[in-house]
């Protein structure tokens, strides 16, 4: 593999890992604060799955870059603009409806993405994707069940879900707008062709929202930037928590 493609592969692995990592961190914030015990455990279990997947991507990224950086360095020691997560996953845990809607918007995408990556030309990406997709199937099922239950629930639960949908919907299209790296990786047959997934994504999502008696926002102005390092103000706060130990005690280990 040429150096340029190697660099692009490294970049691509970060793009794959960062979404899961930042969402995992958001879910981790809920540990001990979930609305009920079972849900608390479910959300932190999903967080754990996501972090496990991130480790697999970043261990591989460290191998690809081969300059002494470890998976922990990659995860912990970047600056805000070097994180490539989408705006969707950094949105706050406003209430349980937001947590579920954010999760579900991501899970639909995540499942479709992994369904493509299992056919990647990169063996290691295939191995990670095959492992992850089984876990993500559960995540999607879990969040979809809650979307239906709360959307088609009481007047208040429906209203809260609708508010969350209205607020978060504008972050969904970024997932399908490829960065230069994503385009290059798709052309090499290593990465997923994102634009080709978009139609199916919205079809599935809209069908679920309809079943949950929720309205699909119309005439939305979509927001982009996270994947290119332009994050919302939330990201700084997330990283303050996330990187605290490494910043305060450089090179510390458990």
């Amino acid at each position: 593999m040429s150096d340029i493609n190697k660099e692009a592969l490294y970049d691509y692995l970060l793009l794959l890992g960062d979404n899961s990592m930042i969402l995992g961190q958001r879910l981790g914030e809920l540990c001990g604060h979930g609305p009920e015990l079972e849900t608390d455990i479910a959300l932190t279990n999903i967080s754990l799955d996501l972090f496990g997947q991130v480790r697999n991507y970043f261990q591989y990224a460290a191998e690809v870059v081969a300059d002494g950086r470890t998976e922990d360095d990659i995860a912990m020691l970047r600056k805000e603009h070097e994180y490539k997560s989408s705006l969707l996953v950094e949105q706050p845990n406003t209430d349980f409806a937001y947590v579920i809607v954010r999760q579900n918007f991501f899970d639909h995408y995540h499942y479709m993405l992994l369904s493509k990556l299992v056919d990647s030309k990169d063996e290691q990406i295939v191995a990670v994707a095959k492992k992850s997709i089984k876990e993500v199937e559960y995540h999607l099922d879990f969040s979809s069940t809650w979307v239906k239950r709360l959307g088609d629930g009481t007047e208040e639960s429906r209203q809260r879900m609708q508010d969350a949908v209205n607020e978060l919907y504008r972050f969904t299209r970024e997932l399908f707008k490829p960065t230069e790296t994503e385009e290059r990786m798709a052309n090499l047959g290593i990465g997923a062709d994102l634009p080709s997934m978009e139609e199916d994504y919205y079809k599935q999502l809209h069908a679920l929202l309809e079943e949950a008696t929720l309205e699909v926002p119309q005439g939305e102005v979509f927001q982009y930037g996270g994947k290119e390092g332009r994050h919302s103000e939330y990201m700084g706060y997330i990283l303050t928590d996330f990187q605290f130990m490494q910043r305060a005690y450089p090179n510390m280990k458990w």
Partner: protein
Amino acid sequence: METVDQHIEDILYSVSDPEIPVLSIVDMGIIKKVEKLDDHFLIHITPTYSGCPAMDTIEDDIVKAFDEEGLKAKVKHILSPAWTTDMITEKGKKALEEYGIAAPRDASIDKAALSGEKNQIKCTNCGSMNTKMVSRFGSTACKALFQCEDCGEPFDYFKCLR
């Protein structure tokens, strides 16, 4: 697992899953290969779930178990082929049940049970089939929480993973 020296197999058998102490990692099906190299054994293990926090402990425990026998072992993590619950041996499934964790059922029963259909999973306490799912995610990512409606016992069910 490929056939290895009985002594090596015994050492590996002595290491158990830290979260399910009755279950040896061999019966768990996570040991994929044992290589005898010049000055150490290289043990290939595969995780059950990507984020399984037990993996690091298991790695330490394997190294320690070999060390106690005066042997040196290193552990290599592999992802492919991805672990499935079919890799748990019959003996392993029995150990799970005796420990109070319902063993994974085949895919169709698993799906019915996890989508909330009642009477799919046998209570590990009283044997009744009158059980229901409480939560799809249990005490660890690999388990779901069930409850018996006859004896009232809450118990874990090891989810089928394929």
